[in-house]
């Protein structure tokens, strides 16, 4: 009977199926056409950065063909990578970003554990509050923070402004709320039986966290780490407002303020510097795309 039904279907099938297939193929064709158009739109600036970075200043100012390199050279890369100022920016950025990742994880993992598993007075309010603080933008806070650090200087004599380590104190405000939020989501998805069994076996809370929760929620931890690193690496407003000396700048501000000087723009070097500055997040993204996207979508869907 089933075979009969199957033969009937194949007999009726062909004309309809082929028209459907043709529709499907046309849809596929146009999907690819538009995808190519959008990929060109999305990738033009980075590709143009690469093109410009391979040119000499002479070729850039001749402007014969902006979209092609006639005499490719790595001179810009050599100059940027031997420039003491650029390497200082890079070191500052790297130290700040890694320190911020460390601080963020040390703060948000225990907090997320406490908020998702160990109810205490006000814990539900705090969880919501954490999410709301994520919505307060840096552009609302930089002026009061500036004033607070001036005030603290007058009070204690410690100069906060114009030191790169100040950024390690401030950046966690951008990373901790979101990372805590992601981790609450991941921890909440771990079955309660797991930690109950561990409690019965006599494990302490610290052991439950480090031996059970952290290994199980490792994808979440990786996603949160990537998020924290990307945010710390890309932050522009705080270092622009709080640091000014060349040796205290981080990459985004350093490139914008020192490479662009007066009327003489050395675009070959600016593009090389910006490209190398954008490389660490891009490399992480290339290898850990799935974690990156998981972190991105978890934040909104688990709200």
């Amino acid at each position, binding site marked *: 009977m089933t075979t009969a039904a199957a033969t009937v279907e194949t007999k009726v099938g062909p004309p309809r199926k082929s028209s459907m297939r043709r529709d499907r193929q046309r849809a*596929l064709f146009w999907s690819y056409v538009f995808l190519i158009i959008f990929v060109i739109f999305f990738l033009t600036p980075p590709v143009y*950065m690469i093109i410009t970075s391979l040119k000499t200043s002479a070729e850039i100012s001749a402007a014969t063909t902006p979209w092609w390199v006639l005499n490719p050279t790595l001179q810009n890369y050599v100059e940027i990578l031997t420039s003491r100022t650029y390497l200082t920016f890079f070191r500052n950025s790297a130290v700040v970003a890694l320190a911020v990742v460390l601080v963020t994880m040390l703060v948000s993992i225990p*907090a997320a554990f406490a908020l998702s598993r160990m109810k205490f007075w006000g814990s539900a309010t705090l969880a919501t509050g954490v999410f709301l603080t994520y919505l307060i933008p840096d552009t609302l806070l930089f002026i009061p923070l500036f004033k607070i650090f001036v005030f603290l200087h007058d009070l204690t004599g410690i100069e906060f402004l114009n030191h790169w380590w100040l950024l390690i104190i401030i950046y966690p405000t951008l990373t901790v709320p979101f990372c805590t939020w992601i981790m609450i989501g991941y921890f909440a998805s771990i079955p309660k039986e797991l930690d109950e069994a561990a409690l019965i076996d006599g494990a302490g809370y610290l052991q439950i966290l480090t031996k059970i929760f952290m290994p199980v929620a490792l994808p979440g931890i990786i996603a949160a780490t990537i998020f924290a690193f990307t945010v710390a690496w890309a932050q522009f407003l705080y270092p622009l407002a709080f640091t000014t000396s060349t040796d205290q700048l981080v990459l985004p501000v350093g490139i914008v303020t020192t490479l662009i000087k007066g009327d003489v723009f050395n*675009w070959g070097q600016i593009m090389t510097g910006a490209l190398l500055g954008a490389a660490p997040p891009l490399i992480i993204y290339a290898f850990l795309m799935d974690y990156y996207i998981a972190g991105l*979508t978890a934040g909104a869907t688990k709200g």
Partner: protein
Amino acid sequence: MNHAVAGGVRVSAGRRKPTLGQFLRRKSTIAFVMALPLIVIIGSLVVYPAFYSFYLATLNKSMERFVGLSNFSFLFTRETFWMVVKQSIIFAVSAVVLKALIGFTVAHFVHNIPVRGQRKWRGMLLVPWVMPPAMSVLAWLWLFDPSYSAFNWLLQKMGASAVPWLGNPYWARFAVILVNVWVGAPFFLIMYLAALKSVPEQLYEAAAIDGANWWQKMWFITLPMMRNIIAITTLFSLIVTFANFDIVRVLTNGGPVDQTHVFATWAFRIGIESNDIPLGACVSLFMFPILALAAIFILRDINKRGGEA
């Protein structure tokens, strides 16, 4: 007898009570200690400064005297302020709408092609979102360069005339929005793609059997199923776009003649560069209403879901 019952209860509870009570107390204390760094960071560096900026906004320029709301009334008399208000709204609304439309369309294209190839395309389409904005916007600045613009080179090759991308107020506004769309559209793309993948295939099959056409499937299945994601993504993006600083700062720095300033860049110009902290705080506070509105919507959403669960 009453006493006996109470005693019996006490005995049975008594065996557990110290351990249970101690356990509870210890648990909540440990939990509080674990959450303490979070509370300290958010309290001292987010909540306190947020309230402090309200106080700052009521001081005079040298911050010695309380002047009430006169900073606000001073702002209302300035033409630049109204220009900034207008530009901020145009910028945020048009950029968010374009980002949502492009994200929605491209998500469908990616969803249409065979699953095997989707990863590769998604990978390429997400690059603008991954690059630090301050650096990728430099590429746009170079593409828009007044004398070496690579876009103008192409336009002139095609016989069109050169466009003053950042020199003319209208083109500069367009350029700022274009770059913002370029940076932000991939975020929408990823969110919408995730939402599209979560729509059960059976719904479309059932609709196809009932003879629904493409528009009906879109209107009655896809959009309602994606409603939550669309709402929350738009809300997020509205906040981020409204408070945007990097793009305008690097691309135009507010120029030409303050025509492209948004609240954040203008607050920076006044508060940090011109050293008028109270007035700068005042300007940045105008970002607060939209924030409060978003917070209300999101809180309502969280409460509703809490009720359902």
